[in-house]
């Protein structure tokens, strides 16, 4: 454990948390609180809330999240390769392209199946 390396980083973390908490606490303490029935309604620019309180949301958001997880993991594999790319040479490039190609197949499949279409 290199205290010397990490101590400044944790000092910044502590400072950031302290600042954010201070802002929050001041906002809670200084501001008045006068709740009323009107205020506690969901804010919709003054017009009355219409329809169901909980809307159903498109399952496409879920697909986006899955695609994100997959590509996030992929990019995590890419970084170490990018750093060592010159010493790994053509073999390294070929293996990385093979890796990317297989995942691209997944992306193309999702594309063809219309998972990337948001028009509907």
């Amino acid at each position, binding site marked *: 454990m290199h205290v010397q390396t990490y101590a400044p980083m944790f000092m*910044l973390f502590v400072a950031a*948390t302290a*600042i954010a908490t201070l802002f929050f606490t001041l906002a809670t303490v*200084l*501001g008045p609180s006068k709740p009323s029935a009107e205020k506690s309604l969901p804010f919709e*620019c003054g017009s009355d809330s219409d329809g169901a309180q909980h*809307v159903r949301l498109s399952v496409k958001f879920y697909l986006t999240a899955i*695609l994100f997880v997959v590509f996030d993991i992929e990019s995590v594999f890419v970084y170490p390769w990018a750093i060592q790319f010159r010493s790994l040479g053509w073999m390294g490039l070929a293996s*990385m392209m093979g890796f990317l190609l297989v995942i691209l197949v997944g992306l193309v499949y999702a594309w063809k199946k219309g998972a990337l279409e*948001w028009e509907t």
Partner: protein
Amino acid sequence: MPNYILYAIPKILIMVGFLFNVGGILTWVDRRQSAMIQDRVGPNRAVIKIGKFELRLWGLLHPAADGVKFFFKEDFMPPKADKLLFSLAPILAMIPVLCLVAVIPFGDTVCPDALIQTVGNVTQLPNIARSGLCTFDPRTGLQPIDLQIVSLDIGLLFVFAMAGQGIVSAAISGWSSDNKFSLMGALRASSQMVSYEVTLGLSVVGALMIYGTLRLGDMVRWQSEHAWGIFVQPVAFFIFFAALVAESKRIPFDLPEAESELVSGYFTEYSGMKFGMFYFAEYMEIVTSSMLVVTVFLGGWGLPFVHRDGITIAFGEGMLAQLPLPHLVVTVFGVLAFFIKTLTLCWIQTFVRWSLPRFRYDQLMGLCWKVLLPVSLANIFVTGVVWLLLDMAPPFVGNMLQLVGDATQGFVAVLVTFLVGSAVFGLFRSRTKDPRIIGASAELVRSAGKSPQSPMQA
């Protein structure tokens, strides 16, 4: 107190202070900029009155007035909201932005021994060698100081890791607000942020392959020795910049908080300083993203032809001019260069906001997954092939590339001189004052030979 803690305090103060001040001023710049573009007067009400003397500062007092107002406004929480999550969200929005600056270098490594030396009665500012480490003087016991809060081997990945934490905050603020528009805004925000995070991460890989490091300080060093990242990886630069603007959810990517559709997105139900924290975090995000682009693509603290030993104007082997400068002067130049570049990029981001219309949601997601992502993957492939071919090429190709790299440095120097020159010239140009003409569009009307006294101009 150990030295490393002593050195860290001013560095943290500089970075956090810069974030807060520039973040605050940016709220003003954004409004003032929009006023200028739309021929309005803009914020000018905040005033400090001392007798007859009124201090307005072109509305610069507005950020301070806003801050005070935010603190004293009612702190409202919807009765059906999840109290813990609702309170946690603004805090979680602010912390990662502040932590993100930990790895961003704002200057070259300082050799404290070589800043000011006193030999006998003579105080002098010594020079240091162009490359190599500091000469460590055991008498003073001062170690070289990195002008960044922490130098991590993972560098850029730390930035991505911190940036990723902001998504959770947007999601839980919308979820806990008990408002369907907040929920929709949160869902839009988080799916936009995750999509563009992928592009952000993959676009920069091309640049990483060339720099061969994740340490942001080493990236800047590579750029000052060769050429700025924007010239080496132009495609990566544009994708990276677009993705960063999308990450900070600004126009043209502001769908999560599109006023005409979703009230105000995931922080609709927040009031007072809790809303202020989201708002302020967003402006600080502009600053941090500008810092990131400056470091990775725009040479960081580097200036064209300025090295650790002074100014050396050289194209390849041909030396044109050389001016040795003291270490202190070079360091100050570097720090100033970094912050000025950051401010310029912040201003460009506010400018972009008032120049482009909002995307449609399908365009937004399509742009990310169907255009930017495949292009950044192709960029990785092309960079890989070209770079490996260059490694196999005979030495004269390398010499030529060095020449081209130096030429880009020269290009930047000339361009910056021209832009600064024309800005200064424009500021001091005498203008015909016509009280009726408010701005650019009126001048346009007049140049077309029509009267500027349209009803709009009255």
